[in-house]
């Protein structure tokens, strides 16, 4: 027990589900309140801004479709990161793993010469494998050489960004791209069908939700999931129990990187139809997915919901840009504020704050 002014802080060991949900929501609301100050600083009435955003996103089917479209890569990456975080592997590299998947999918789409019906499945498979390989490099480095996973995953993002830049400026620069740094457009058979009237590539969405269910099952019902949770909670206990750290870490990053790779393949086949500069392919989905996973608190199914929340923020960014003439980067500010308040709220979850005015100061 600690005393801070008139408050008493009491440690609580296991916060209830309700407390976790309530406090997380409170953190998001507080972040939005602070974001209101930014609108105000831009000379935009915050009340007006939030109303315009609401009308542009949640108030119409078109708006909803945009929210979902933005959420698709976040679902895939977020679910993968949830799995990695459960093993205490701090995968900050989903951004690079998305790009790896995009590159592999592009390679298959443009250069494989596979028959048309095989093209899309092969693109997804290649995307998964490329993301997985990009994710397993830091896993190996961590287990074999004790390289810090945060640093190695983060740095590999930049490596992959420059690989993409090199490809679109160099060997894969399309003869039909008229001098732009694009690859050629994918053939029709390498493009995903959309829900008519929207830009939602629903196949990737279905894959993402299926993966969330599969990962939830994996974590709760399988040996690998059990070992993942043991490793994540106590490495000493894992060692004592004879759990193979290398095997678990590699599997976890195969899944985590692979799902991000699927997201990259989905963005290629469903949105862009061509490899282009990395900032246009991903727009920071890989980093936002970290917040998605954090907010999901270890549950892959909850990551679907939190991904939709951040899909909403991305869609709101588009609205802000068009209707309020503010830069799209405001979404980064939103994301940063939400992450900031969420991490701050951790403290509230494990400490119960009680109002108890001062008694004798020297109370033992």
């Amino acid at each position: 027990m600690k005393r801070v002014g008139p408050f008493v802080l009491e440690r609580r060991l296991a916060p209830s589900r309700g407390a976790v949900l309530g406090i997380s929501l409170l953190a998001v609301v507080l972040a939005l309140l602070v974001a209101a100050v930014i609108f105000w600083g831009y000379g935009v009435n915050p009340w007006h801004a939030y109303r315009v955003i609401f009308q542009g996103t949640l108030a119409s089917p078109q708006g909803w479709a945009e929210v979902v479209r933005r959420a698709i890569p976040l679902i895939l990456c977020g679910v993968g990161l949830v799995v990695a975080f459960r093993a205490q592997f701090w995968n900050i590299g989903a951004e690079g793993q998305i790009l790896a998947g995009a590159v592999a999918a592009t390679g298959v789409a443009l250069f494989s010469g596979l028959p048309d019906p095989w093209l899309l499945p092969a693109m997804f498979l290649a995307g998964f494998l490329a993301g997985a390989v990009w994710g397993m490099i830091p896993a190996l480095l961590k287990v074999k050489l004790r390289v810090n996973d945060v640093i190695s995953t983060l740095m590999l993002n930049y490596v992959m960004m420059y690989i993409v830049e090199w490809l679109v400026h160099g060997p894969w620069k399309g003869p039909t791209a008229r001098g732009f740094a694009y690859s050629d457009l994918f053939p029709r058979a390498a493009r995903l069908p959309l829900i008519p009237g929207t830009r939602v590539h629903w196949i990737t969405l279905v894959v993402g939700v299926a993966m969330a269910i599969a990962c939830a099952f994996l974590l709760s019902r399988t040996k690998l999931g059990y070992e993942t949770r043991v490793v994540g909670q106590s490495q000493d206990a894992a060692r004592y129990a004879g759990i193979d750290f290398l095997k678990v870490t590699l599997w976890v990053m195969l899944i985590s990187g692979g799902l991000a790779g699927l997201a990259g393949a989905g963005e290629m086949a469903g949105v862009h139809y061509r490899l282009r500069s990395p900032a246009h392919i991903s727009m920071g989905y890989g980093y936002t997915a970290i917040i998605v996973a954090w907010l999901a608190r270890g549950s892959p199914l909850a990551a679907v919901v939190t991904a939709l929340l951040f899909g909403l923020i991305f869609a709101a960014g588009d609205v802000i840009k068009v209707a309020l003439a503010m830069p799209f980067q405001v979404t980064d500010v939103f994301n940063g504020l939400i992450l900031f308040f969420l991490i701050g709220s951790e403290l509230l979850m494990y400490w119960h704050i009680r109002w108890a005015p001062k008694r004798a100061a020297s109370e033992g």
Partner: protein
Amino acid sequence: MMAAPGAGDLGGNQNSPPLVLLEGVTKSFPGVVANDRVTLDVRPGEVHALLGENGAGKTTLMNILYGLYRPDAGEIYVKGRKVVIRSPRDAIACGIGMVHQHFKLVYPHTVAENVALGLQGTPFFGPARVVERGLRELGERYNLPVDPKARVWQLSAGEQQRVEILKALYRGADVLILDEPTSVLTPQETGELFKVLARMKEEGHAVVFITHKLDEVMEAADRVTVMRRGKVIDTLPVAETDKASLARMMVGRDVVFRISKAECTPGKEALVLRDLRAVNDRGLPALRGISLTVCRGEIVGIAGVAGNGQRELVEVICGLRRAQGGEVVVLGRPLTNRSPRTVADAGVAHIPEERLRMGIVPGMTVEENLILKKHHRPPFSSGPLLRLAEVRRFAEQAIEEYEIITPSPKTPAKLLSGGNIQKLILARELSGEPGLVVAAHPTYGLDVGATELIRQLLLRQRDAGAGVLLVSEDLEEIVSLADRIAVMFRGEIMGIVEASAAELGEIGLMMAGTRSGMGDPR
């Protein structure tokens, strides 16, 4: 502000008034009285050893003196004046300094910066520079050479300890408390430390020296206070006592009682160790050729003060530490340097020393913890899947059989009490008829009821035909449970005695490094 009442003159020292007097100090923690009406006087110019087993209350008492805990009852007098010590800052103001077992140093900083940290009256800019000069003087006076500009991470453990001592001296400590100061030192460094203590004595300081090593008491102390289970057993001059009687006081011979146990019937060999060698975490030799046999149906106790290789021995047997040489054979199978899983699957149960850090996964549920180590085998899994119904059935059975008190099998294990966590670990480890049980300090820190239950469980394992290797610092426990007792000292076995013929005095001497004549490394 009152004068100290006349302290009972316990030793044969000169009649100088005590520098520090603790009177009737009592401190309880939930479920245990750590200090029970403790009275202790420390005189200027003496090294006063505070001797006792782990958990005897030595460190609690000194933490009270240093202001880290508040006593429930009792008084503290410093130089005859009654004082209330609320924090280390108060203690320092009273001239009391403490060197903790784990150093409180900022590793990237220099020695002088560490000493300057938190020091009153230093300039805002460059406080370390002012300190440097003083440090050199102190270093020369007490023969504590340390370069004030060296960075702490570059220093050896012995040098870091010197920094801690200098830190206390710089703050004007008249009384210096050292908590197990030799546990991190090499024998040479220990010798140097004792020279420093002698020097401090000459300067009129008093040193309180917490230890459980008899040798060091005999070598370095003037008087010794023996504590057991929170109480002071006696305070007496070292010159008037010897190791054997100190060992007896430490362990308490009046309370040796035997749990009824059946006649030992050695059968097949459960564990054979041949010339086992290993190093500790710092790369220093921890096991120097251990040879030992544990038969099925017997308990072999490993006695010894902490840090003489017991931990490393357990880890090597269980596959958690590499053996540099020698052989481990379990139930007839060579298992030297095999993975922990191979060892566990071969029928070795391991009750680990650090039950919270290693024995359980605190955030996972009771039922999930009950299958740790066994989750990869039938009936708890088939193929890649866990069989949750089987897990639940096993958990419910184990909770009932081992009397684990938990709201439900779904409760996180960290919410259980210490005794119930240990019961959980035993329920898991003892299921499936292990051939060898390696138990490290299985009752450490537990209440009487849980202790009794766990001892009975170990005896039942023995009677069911398992070999049991029991590592414990509680000599009483070893004597009452074990069939044979092996005493470890500095990575070697000093001797093996039959428990029925064991004399505590003899075991105490072997714990202090005297080799037994009747060694029988069967």
